[in-house]
């Protein structure tokens, strides 16, 4: 049984919504134990190992992030940040080598605008998210998420939440 496009799209929307609603534990549950979250530092960056990335995190590091956000002594979250995702409808990447519905593996690509705010400051980011999803025990899980910012090489201030 493979997933319909509509189910995949709903999954992507749900992920963004959990971040926007700051339900980070539920968000983390969407990720496979072997998941990687990658935000390259340059356009067309081939490698996350020998080149610095903005983020290249496994589930352990994502969990550190989530727990840190909730910490009493996380001063950069006093006051807290808020965020908002505006997603274009995800496209199911049927031509992608990793997209194999018969094996329960799917690839989607989603253009987005992402707004992060803290106090009176509001910053807009734009980019594309690529998700590699896989069936695990009857549930869809994120195996890999890549976030490509249109201005990934720019000098940013703090980006504290998750795109």
């Amino acid at each position, binding site marked *: 049984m493979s997933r319909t496009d509509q189910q995949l799209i709903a999954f992507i929307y749900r992920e963004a919504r959990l971040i926007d609603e700051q339900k980070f534990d539920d968000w983390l549950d969407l990720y496979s134990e072997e998941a990687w979250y990658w935000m390259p*530092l340059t356009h067309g960056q081939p490698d996350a190992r020998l080149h*610095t990335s903005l*983020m*290249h995190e496994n589930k352990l590091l994502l969990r550190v992030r989530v727990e840190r956000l909730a910490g009493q*002594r996380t001063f950069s979250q006093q006051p807290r940040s808020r965020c908002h995702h505006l997603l274009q409808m995800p496209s199911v990447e049927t031509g992608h080598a990793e997209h194999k519905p018969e094996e329960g593996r799917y690839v989607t690509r989603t253009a987005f605008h992402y707004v992060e705010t803290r106090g009176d400051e509001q910053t807009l980011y734009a980019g594309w998210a690529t998700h590699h999803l896989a069936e695990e025990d009857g549930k869809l899980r994120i195996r890999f998420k890549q976030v490509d910012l249109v201005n990934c090489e720019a*000098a940013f201030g703090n980006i504290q939440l998750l795109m």
Partner: protein
Amino acid sequence: MPQSSYRGNPQAIRDLVQDTQVHKDIFISQELYEIEMERLFAVTWVYVGHESQVPKPGDFYTTTVGDQSVVMVRHSDQSVRVLYNRCAHKGVQVAPQGHGSTGKFFRCPYHAWTFKTDGSLLSVPLKKGYENTGFENMEASRGLEAVSAVRNYRGFVFCRLSATGESFEDFFGESLSTIDNMVDRSPEGRLEVAGGVLRYMHRCNWKMLVDNQTDTCHPMVAHESSAGTAVRVWQEAPEGTPKPMAVELFAPFISPYEFYENTGIRVWKNGHGHTGVSGSIHSNYSNIPGYWDSMVAAYGEERAHQILGETRHNTILFPHVMVKGPIQILRIFRPLAADRTLVESWTFRLAGAPDMLLERTTMYNRLINAPTSMVGHDDLEMYERAQHGLQHARAREWVNVARLLEPGETERENEVVNGTSEWQMRNQYRAWARYMTEGAK
């Protein structure tokens, strides 16, 4: 707003740095920022780039020295030159932002004046239009202005914009030993820029970052949220799980005060100094297979031990560079305004060493120095709160740097002290006051 005017008033600038405290104006006055650009960043040796960024003749890299736009270029004689990036004709930046190869000459994109890679004027279209104008005596005929004081030290290119001043060796003195150690960590004695550059915008004064580099009383407080959480999450992992490299990099941050007290600080002259004299947060990383053997083959066992046993934490090359030798990172603090600083974090490959070293270096860079880094979030929050506090709390004038003050500090140099001393900060501010005012009328 500061009440007094500092321009043309060197005594007022000197008065901002006292033995145990420095005045808030050095962090918030835009006038002082401008004087820093005109004086401090002109008379000191400022980092430009690494020679591996311009490997072949004609290769260039554009950057800034203080607030001056320059291009670092490999000349036909293989030397690395630093030119002001401003056409002799109408002032257009001849080299585009970034890096590339210009071939044998720079050609201005506006009117096609061309300049050799040492800056000299090569050709002007319709040259005869300048006959009988006295062109050969005009400023424009001299081409692109070259910075005369340039020094390539083991691949690291520094320049002094001012034509006269302290020599490179006199200025840096013993602090060059940190660069030596970083380069010696390559079995081939050579570094290459690799892994990209992180750029991180800070809405604070650049000296807060310099101050922070040898501040060993903040990690266990400010970084409890990031490094502390990382250690806690890791401890919850099932027993027997190998310790991830990321945890190995995070964990030492929250070492206790005693650790930092005992590892010491070395204070050199002219504002230079470093933390981590006897061991540091970088001392206990796992061995990387093959690296030790390649070092022994290159240097012999005794010398290899000596090189790798030196694990300095943060070295400040005053005014604006921080070097992490054991993990091959350079952080450059670029002042953009009194309350705005661009931080660039550059990483290096040790030529002839296993790739896994560069992997650890780039991992450290993204975990600690990225705008998406939790550790970075901790620090930037403190700087921005400090900037705000200094600017908007008129009742207090001074920032305190009295910790472990010693008698006669200004007469002493090359000393090792308790690692929680603020002597190195005092050293930086004293150097700041001196270079800001030396020779000033």
